[in-house]
């Protein structure tokens, strides 16, 4: 399985993990990376993008409405909007009700990504205190994609990845370093 897109969802305690993973990736990467974080909305704030970019040579940008996603880029879901992936490989934004008290909701992004990419998708669920993302992983798996949860033992808040493990929706659990190794196998 060689993914066209790797989608990563995280809540509390996940930023450090993503920073570690992307700093370990060989560049360039042959797939697109999409990050969906639960975070507080601050108008016109670019800190997160800048922070991620400081750890990687892979270009990092906020996902824009109707933008086509391309390999070799890291896209970050904007705060306060749901991020949806379309079958024509573009993003759409949506500002409807919060799901699991969250907008962006990891479930929404994962589920639409599963519909759009099928077995060309890898979903990774990281540290967090919420159960957002578990149903999304389930959908990714049903559609033939590959699912990883951060090993709860390595997560600063283990609830979210532990839910994914308990509900048996994942193929494997990995430490942050192992996730990077796995991704580097795909070039």
């Amino acid at each position, binding site marked *: 399985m060689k993914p066209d897109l790797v989608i990563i969802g995280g809540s509390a305690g996940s930023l450090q993990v993503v920073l570690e993973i992307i700093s370990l990736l060989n560049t360039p990467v042959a797939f697109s990376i999409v990050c969906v974080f639960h975070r507080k909305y601050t108008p016109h704030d670019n800190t997160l993008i800048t922070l991620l970019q400081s750890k990687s040579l892979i270009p990092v940008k906020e996902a824009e409405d*109707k933008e086509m996603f391309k390999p070799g880029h890291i896209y970050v879901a904007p705060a306060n909007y749901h991020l949806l992936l379309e079958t024509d490989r573009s993003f759409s934004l*949506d500002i409807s009700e919060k799901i699991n008290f969250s907008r962006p909701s990891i479930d929404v992004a994962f589920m639409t990504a599963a*519909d759009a990419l099928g077995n060309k998708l890898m979903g990774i669920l990281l540290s967090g205190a919420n159960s957002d993302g578990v*149903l999304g992983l389930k959908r990714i798996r049903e559609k033939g994609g590959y699912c990883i949860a951060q090993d709860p033992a390595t997560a600063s808040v283990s609830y979210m990845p532990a839910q994914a493990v308990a509900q048996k929706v994942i193929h494997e659990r990995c430490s942050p370093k192992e996730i990077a190794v796995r991704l580097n196998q795909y070039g």
Partner: protein
Amino acid sequence: MRGTPEVKEEELEILLTDLNERYGYDFTDYSRASLKRRVNRLMVTEKFPSFAEMRFRLIEDPFYLRRFIEEITVNVTEMFRDPEFFTYLRNQILPHLGTYPFIRIWIAGCASGEEAYSIAILMEELKLLNKTLIYATDINPRVLEGAQTGIFPIRSMQQYSENYRLSGGTEEFSKYYIAQYDKALFKESLRNKIVFSPHNLVSDRSFNSFQLILCRNVLIYFQLRLQNRVFKLFDASLDQLGYLALGAKETLRFSEIYNKYKQVDSREKIWRKNEA
């Protein structure tokens, strides 16, 4: 949530064809992922056992149509949502409109009307409301009926009042409504200045000319082709030197009308039409 019924791509297309052919609602250029998500959600909340049942209900029951349209479109909004945007409107845009003898503002895709009331409040505070008319339109007749009453849940007022204050409002927000039980009824002097009317951005034409058009967080639900159609509609409905305000994540940049406009601020999503 387990075993969530899921509408297939082909089924969604069938539904869209039905809506268009039977009722003249054309959703074919809406963004698919969001539409599909909402149809799936409706399958669950309405407890339809299968797609066939949902389709049958929609075809056989024209009264159900209104509810269906309301449910598959997004109607979430707030008063003074994005306070920094309203601060900019209050200080930089609306005072310019004061030079016109009569001010027409169009809120396209107004949903339940919170933004229309927010604008009316700003115009009142700038002492411009008496010569202003706000046209607030939406595809959903049902939400417009609610908007027209000027009644909103009282539990939202704390948030709206906070948004109002953050956007530079200095009055007591509660002076704009009468609280009764769990409802807040907004003042008639505000309501009188807003005309709520159905208008479908997909199929309806320009109906007036405006100095300011607000269409925030509507275009994200449209595919690029439809976005472009709507931009042309706005262009045809906007006076020279008029303003077009979009949502925080929407842009005029890739549209065909882009070269006729200038963004007025590097951050706020507000464009001004050039002089011809």
